[in-house]
């Protein structure tokens, strides 16, 4: 006779445990890390390029780029002045904590203040895999349409900041900002939002100021703990 064994385990708990190890490693080195997620073409790499340039001389930046096959994104990050490690996921649709763990081993964390992890372009899978970063950031963009919070609730719920990119295209595409924001409000009340354009530079300073403040607060909290 078969015997019923209660299990009741979260299926991705192994990944969650590894993510905590990654977090501990980052904290030991005092590196603040963000995980940037978005659909393909929303502007993750452009935002990172602007971020690297905007924080040059203020913070020492490192990058981990997840991509299915190429190193183009890491190349762009390096060109903008960051230390970059490329992870080719070999077809996987998301980064997981194991991949980030091996990438962390290739970085000299003692020489970094801020680590930016660029996830694989995808609004579904990355939301389920914690990496150990301190904040998750979603880059949305105007041409994707205003229905995205409704179609990808998991992604919109799991982030601490939403960057709305390509606002320079608002006059040219039908996009109901209030409908879009109402969806975000239900899924993730009070989440910090930035409306900007990587092409024109509009709105970028607010994003950079916020990010710098996050790193500063992180360091202060860390000093107090010591």
């Amino acid at each position: 006779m078969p015997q019923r064994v209660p299990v009741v385990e979260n299926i991705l708990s192994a990944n969650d445990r590894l993510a905590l190890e990654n977090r501990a490693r980052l904290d030991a080195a005092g590196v603040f890390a963000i995980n940037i997620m978005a659909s393909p073409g929303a502007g993750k790499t452009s935002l990172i390029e602007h971020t690297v340039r905007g924080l040059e001389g203020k913070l020492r930046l490192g990058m981990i780029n997840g991509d299915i096959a190429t190193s183009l994104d890491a190349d762009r990050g390096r060109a903008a002045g960051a230390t970059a490690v490329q992870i080719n996921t070999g077809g996987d649709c998301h980064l997981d904590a194991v991949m980030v763990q091996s990438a962390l081993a290739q970085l000299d964390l003692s020489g970094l203040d801020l680590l930016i992890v660029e996830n694989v372009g995808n609004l579904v899978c990355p939301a389920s895999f914690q990496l150990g970063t301190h904040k998750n950031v979603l880059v949305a963009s105007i041409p994707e349409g205003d229905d995205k919070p409704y179609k990808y609730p998991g992604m919109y719920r799991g982030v601490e900041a939403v960057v709305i990119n390509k606002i320079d295209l608002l006059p040219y595409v039908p996009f109901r900002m209030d409908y879009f924001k109402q969806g975000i409000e239900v899924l993730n009340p009070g989440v910090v939002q930035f409306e900007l354009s990587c092409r024109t530079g509009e709105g970028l300073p607010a994003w950079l100021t916020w990010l710098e403040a996050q790193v500063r607060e992180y360091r202060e909290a860390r000093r107090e703990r010591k």
Partner: protein
Amino acid sequence: MHELAVTQSVLDIALRHAAERNARRITDLYLVIGQWSSIVDDSVQFYWDIISEGTIAQGATLHFRRVPVELTCLDCGQVYQPTSEELVCPQCAGSRVRVRQGDELQLEAIDIE
């Protein structure tokens, strides 16, 4: 799309629990899958047939319990299922909600011999 990773984790968890009880075989697995976890049963089943081969879970039946999303409106108390076009409360149009269910991604139990 991330069903392979999910299925691998299901197998790992099930094999660990079976080993703790010196099981010879795993015959059934009971999964709880919330609507917002974005997991497709057919894909899990597809990967399962491949990766369970050669383990004591080979041939085991996967049982899926799907859990629809239910929200509670914090303004009027209404419990409702959101649609793919509307998330706010259908009764009072409130946007302050609590997720009652629909997030689950769990292995609830296994049957062993």
